[in-house]
């Protein structure tokens, strides 16, 4: 750990090796017309067994690698798999249309919803257009604009979080990145519509929080949510971003740590070996979970739901309260 040169995906090597052997056997079976299906089945079993072992004890840093895997299903994949009849709505009506956040109307489980989803893109061209998933102020403003629409017309809001962080650049600062993020956070805390958020990959700091102040915040098993990137944390602590693996542990950014801290409400399991190995299955799991969660929050009267959301955020934090009697009054 802590070695910048080591491939952080080394942990997957045993699995990849077995998968290679399976592929070899399959191709041999085809060419030679010899039945080795028993051997193949055995290897599959071995592969699953190894995956269960490996994936049950991933380090925080290894999970961060999975969260960033370019083959991991992203927002557009999920729109194709689980959200029906998607009708995209563009633009913030003030500056532009940020491609790093997709917003639109769609249906899931017979319910009409508003979807707000951070997008990283798949091809190089898409990735550039999306700034690798880092939204600008106009993206956050677009998200809020559409959430207001949902509020007015009584639609629940679903948000998918996947960003390394809000974009760090000149234009973003000129257009008030901090102020716009603050505005989103405030407005979501009192939005009169049910809000369900899922961190599907990276949950990078304020840039993630700006679309996930929610009644329910869920996180996929191999996603993360953090106040700062592990690399950024390592640079501050050791002036060495190569120590990111150590920083990732310290930050308690993994789903089950976040659950213990009361930051997230539920961890959604991924298919064996991670979402990138079976996007279709991941889509099915996520869809079922979204419907289940929406059923729960969408039937709560809105006044009660907003009050509950307020209470939820009001109580987050860890501190000690020293008895007042032990304190001398201070005047300045």
């Amino acid at each position, binding site marked *: 750990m802590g070695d910048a040169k080591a491939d952080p995906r080394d942990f997957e090597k045993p699995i990849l090796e077995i998968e290679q052997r399976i592929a070899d056997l399959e191709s041999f079976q085809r060419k030679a017309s010899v039945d080795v299906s028993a051997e193949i089945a055995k290897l599959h079993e071995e592969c699953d067994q190894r995956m269960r072992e490996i994936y049950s004890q991933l380090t925080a840093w290894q999970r961060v690698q999975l969260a960033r895997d370019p083959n991991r299903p992203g927002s557009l994949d999920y729109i194709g798999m689980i959200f029906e009849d998607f009708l995209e709505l563009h633009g913030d009506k003030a500056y532009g249309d940020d491609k790093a956040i997709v917003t639109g109307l769609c249906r899931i489980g017979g319910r009409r919803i508003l979807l707000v989803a951070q997008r990283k893109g798949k091809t190089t061209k898409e990735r550039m257009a999306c700034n690798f998933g880092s939204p600008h102020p106009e993206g956050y403003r677009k998200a809020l604009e559409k959430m207001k629409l949902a509020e007015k017309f009584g639609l629940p809001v679903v948000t998918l979080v996947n960003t390394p962080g*809000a974009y*760090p*650049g*000149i234009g*973003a*600062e*000129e*257009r*008030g*990145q*901090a*102020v716009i*993020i*603050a*505005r989103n*956070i*405030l*407005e979501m*805390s*009192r939005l009169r519509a049910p809000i369900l958020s899922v961190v599907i990959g990276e949950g990078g*700091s*304020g840039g993630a*929080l*700006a679309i996930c*102040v929610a009644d329910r915040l869920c996180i996929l098993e191999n996603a993360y*949510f*953090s*106040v*700062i990137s592990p690399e*950024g*944390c390592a640079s*501050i*602590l*050791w002036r060495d971003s190569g120590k990111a693996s150590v*920083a990732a542990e*310290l*930050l*308690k*950014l993994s789903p089950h740590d*976040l659950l213990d*801290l009361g*930051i997230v409400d539920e961890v959604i399991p991924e298919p064996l070996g991670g979402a990138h190995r079976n996007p279709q299955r991941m889509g099915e799991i996520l869809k079922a979970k979204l419907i289940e969660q929406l059923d729960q929050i969408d039937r709560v009267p809105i006044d009660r739901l907003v009050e509950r*959301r*307020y209470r939820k*955020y*009001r109580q*987050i*934090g*860890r*501190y*000690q*309260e*020293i008895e*007042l009697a*032990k*304190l001398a*009054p*201070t*005047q*300045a």
Partner: protein
Amino acid sequence: MAFEKIRNLLGRKKSLPGGLWMKCPDCIGMIYRKEMEERKLVCPACNYHFTMTPQERIHLLLDEESFTRMWSNLEPVDALNFEGVTSYKQKLEAAQKETGERDAVWAGVGRLEGRPLVFGLTDSRFMMGSMGSVVGETIARAFEFATERRLPVVFVSGSGGGARMYEGALSLMQMAKSSATIARFQEAGGLYISVLTNPTMAGVMASFAALGDVLVAEPKALIGFTGPRVIEQTIRQELPKGFQTSEFLLEHGFVDLIVERPKLRREVARLIEYLT
């Protein structure tokens, strides 16, 4: 998080050092200490606004002897068991020893030109004014108290550190907590004047500091989301002069007014007179 550059910009860590003269970190000029105190810690040569201690800030803005501090009994805890080069516990101990405070926030009630209000500040000397659970909780209580008593709030931010890394996502969530209580306060008709001082960055600027009904900035303060060094590294070019200063924010429409420190008390009072 925005730690870079800020250390230099802070210039002065504790109260004024002894000696007759002090050095301006911005123009490197030497200033006669007594003159500096009369000028409310503003450099006569370049208008650089030195960091004020909480006591100096309270003295600057509130009526004499009018401030009563509240919620100062909240003590930070190391919920993550954070062990770095220096652990969170060590960091806290050092900051507590240096400032004599439990954490980076002050809040309470006071008067400004006779008008009662809730007053608070973040102390940039304490872990760069960063927001962890104690800062978030204190702000939440201050706004709840102001809502109950129907008092205006004046809050002075000086937080280069943003959300405090050492409390992980708990710090991040303080952005939501503080913002949610401000929403309720403002819905109830409360007036919140946010005063931005050098530096106010990242998670603090992206939550409670930006949410004032009126945003007032001191001149030349560093204000923004991402720290300048991180931006430079990302875009691989030098940043324009004056980037992320109060004047930059004014030009781009994100603060209502810039007020020089000697006029700050009167201008805040005028705002309250107009709006309450």
